[in-house]
């Protein structure tokens, strides 16, 4: 299953590996240790989430998705996608596989952009667990206020670009 994205990733890996190797300061070894840690951390989660998603795709009626989140529904999918993205209380494995599931069931590009962008900016679990302690409520309030329209703008732009 060779695709442009796979080739791009392979090329990028080689280029960055070459740059790191030329440094000769142990960068490659440090990257290798980090790579092993990340794979051990996330790959098992990914496998489990893919299994759950595969079943979800069978259970969720695709008509329901295409009716409410499909291109034919105009700008409504962007609103739904943006609001849903703000409410996903989980990490990237869940958010992105949910998006992949919705994409497979016929959700529009704009809705997916709004969903992912909203999750990236407003991931509720990240705000509650990390940002309230790292940033403090005042900065968090400012950040959330000014970023509120972003998922919907991004979704609308994506809708017209696609």
């Amino acid at each position: 299953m060779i695709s442009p994205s796979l080739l791009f990733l392979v090329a990028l890996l080689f280029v960055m590996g070459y740059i790191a190797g030329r440094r000769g300061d142990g960068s490659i070894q440090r990257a290798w240790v980090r790579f092993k840690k990340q794979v051990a951390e996330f790959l098992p989660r990914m496998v489990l989430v893919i299994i759950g998603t595969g079943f979800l795709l069978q259970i969720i009626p695709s008509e329901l998705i295409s009716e409410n989140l499909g291109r034919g529904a105009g700008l409504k999918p962007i609103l739904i996608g943006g609001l849903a993205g703000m409410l996903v209380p989980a990490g990237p494995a869940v958010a992105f596989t949910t998006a992949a599931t919705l994409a497979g069931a016929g959700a529009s590009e704009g809705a997916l952009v709004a969903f992912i962008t909203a999750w990236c900016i407003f991931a509720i679990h990240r705000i509650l667990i990390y940002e309230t302690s790292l940033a403090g409520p005042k900065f968090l309030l400012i950040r959330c206020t000014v970023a509120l329209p972003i998922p919907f703008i991004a979704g609308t732009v994506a809708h017209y670009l696609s």
Partner: protein
Amino acid sequence: MKSLRLLHIECENTVTKQQQTDEGFDKDPPVTGKKKSRFKKRHIEMIAYAAFGVAGGGYCYYLKGAEGFSMAIDVQVEMMAGMLPRITLAFGIAALLWVLLDAEKLKELIQKQRGVMQLVYATILGAITPGGPTSSFSILNLFLASGLGYVIGITYITAWSMLGVQRILIWDMPLLGIDQASLRFLAGFWLPSLAGLLAGWLFGKQQATSLK
């Protein structure tokens, strides 16, 4: 040459709470007392994902019978064959990015810029900062402490959250494809600057010198 890792250690005094992140990039500074609970949390998470799979499988069998169940298995095999090689490659790229970046130099670059270019550099630095909230908020704190203000601070942190290159490589591209990832980037690359300008306009009178 100071890497993000060193910068992170430097900033530990300013940010000491919660060394974990959902994407796992900030787990290097070990917090011995918390190791056990992190281990426990990881196991609970895995059990929850497994339960999601089992419940989904059971409900799928109940709704669609053996045929629907077997179709779901086919979809899962196809998804795994498509995604896992990409995700593995992306983890390799993210690990290399993490060791290659020189955040200190980029921060100095931002300070040297004026006007729109400062926004552009803040967006780029936000996008390429690997790691979770601990790394990025440490850098943000340095920006605010050096007088860069809300405009640059908000631009940087919004770019980090929505345009993070590591996130695009690890999650967007493998799971949603290069077209959808490019579309999200194209639709949103200018929005962190907008958020920064909006913050400057709405809250600029409040001098931001630290996060709290």
